[in-house]
């Protein structure tokens, strides 16, 4: 399987092969993260999910914008990203947060504020 590592801007072109015993060999990587990435891509691709949640009118005034950027505190399955992102539609933040504090929970994942306001 040919892959592009997304760990850093270098974007190494990887080749990952799974043999009949289930062992995975990776070539093309320039660091150990490439092996980790390729292995995960073959098993179950995972990504951090960045999106936004709504702010209450009062919080929107405080922040200056209507939406608050958030990031999942752990990686989520790639194939569920759209579903998880859309499930955040009903979340509204109505108190001030510091960067890293929990802003919303959805589909079993926690989303932290990307900035303080």
């Amino acid at each position: 399987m040919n892959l592009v590592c997304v760990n850093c801007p270098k974007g190494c072109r990887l080749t990952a092969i799974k043999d009949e015993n289930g062992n995975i060999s990776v070539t093309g990587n320039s660091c150990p993260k490439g092996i980790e990435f390729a292995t995960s891509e073959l098993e179950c691709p995972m990504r951090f999910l960045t999106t936004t949640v709504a702010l209450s009118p009062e919080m929107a005034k405080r922040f200056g914008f209507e939406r608050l950027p958030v990031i999942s505190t752990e990686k989520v399955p790639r194939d569920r990203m759209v579903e998880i992102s859309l499930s955040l539609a009903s979340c509204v933040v109505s108190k001030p947060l510091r960067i890293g504090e929990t802003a919303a929970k959805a589909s079993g994942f926690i989303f932290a504020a990307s900035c303080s306001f």
Partner: protein
Amino acid sequence: MIDVLVIGGGPGGLAAAVSASKAGASVMLLDREHALGGILKQCIHDGFGLQRFHKQLSGPSYAQAFIDEILLLPVDIRLDCFVFEVSCLEDGSFRVLASSRDGIIDVNALAVVSATGCRERTARQVSIHGDRVSGVFNAGCIQNLVNLHGYMPGQRCAILGSGDIGLIMARRLTLEGAEVVGVFEAKKTPSGLERNIHQCLDDFGIPLHLGCTVTRTIGHRRLEAVEVADTDDAMNPILSTSRIVSVDSLIVSVGLIPEVELLKNLPVKMDSRTHGPVIDQKGMTSVPGLFCCGNSSLVYDLVDYVSLASETAGQSAAKWAKNRGLARKTEIQVHPSGPLLFISPSLIDMDSSSVRFFFRASEELEGRTLTLCQNGHEIFKRTYSVLRPPQMETFEIRTELLDPDHAVEASL
């Protein structure tokens, strides 16, 4: 009189203001928006900060690190201030005029750092014919509307241009429930980073049409469809391949150009390759005391490099303000040749101990060597296993290796 006046509160301006203040200068920072952070505010995706913080941060988180730092320093920050004129006074200092909520701000500064970022090329700059309909947006504009204000441009989008912002918005719109029918790129190779092709398009099954461009917008008041056509080697559309794609929005991501409007009435020499001013390794322009950094000097691929170069510019501006009147003693020029899109700086100040270069190749190349020569004598060389136009490369050399009497020939 202020020592250093910084225009712009994005990553470039923040890093420059922080470093100038730490170097002991009195600093004022003006920004036209209501919050610090510049474009990073709307870049909610992760992937920033690997070089600087050794972890992947979102844009707002990367900016927050600098905002937290600047708020602890005695920097006079003025928001909602639009700088409309910078002029050079007879004594070599600068007069800066800005409009603010409290009226005109009129300040005098010994050094000015311009960190005004860059602008997007528009649909009008790439010759799309057709109806003047609503529904045609720049990628950065959509990023602002979606990420900060919660507006969606439409439900069925086409993206013209494979620049990073276009790729990132393809993913973003998909995550918000829109259908992205495809990314159309007139060139045969993508303009964005490899990993963005993978994690923004491939991850979501969004097709990338290389060698294919949008030739016409079709609609009555609102966009209803675009006409697309394959391109030949000269990037001209092949009319016989034209077809109609039904969409309600066209997102244009066809390149960035440094924002240099404010410098236009100053005698600033421009660099035809970077489209920013000619600068030395400290970010100083051809006007003594006027510095330019970040994307307003050249368009970077990584914000980490913007911070790095802007810190140098901020420190140098502070030093300039302190030792007023000390002009650059010796400078040498850098002449690029071969498939180099640009190499920056194009001027080297020999009074500094080192110089950090940034360059981009103009085409994808394998196993190519970049060399710096002076008068036929080789100063530096490095071989790159692969060079791609979207990816910037950087290296540093000591100025003591250089001969002050000859220009540097940079060739790839």
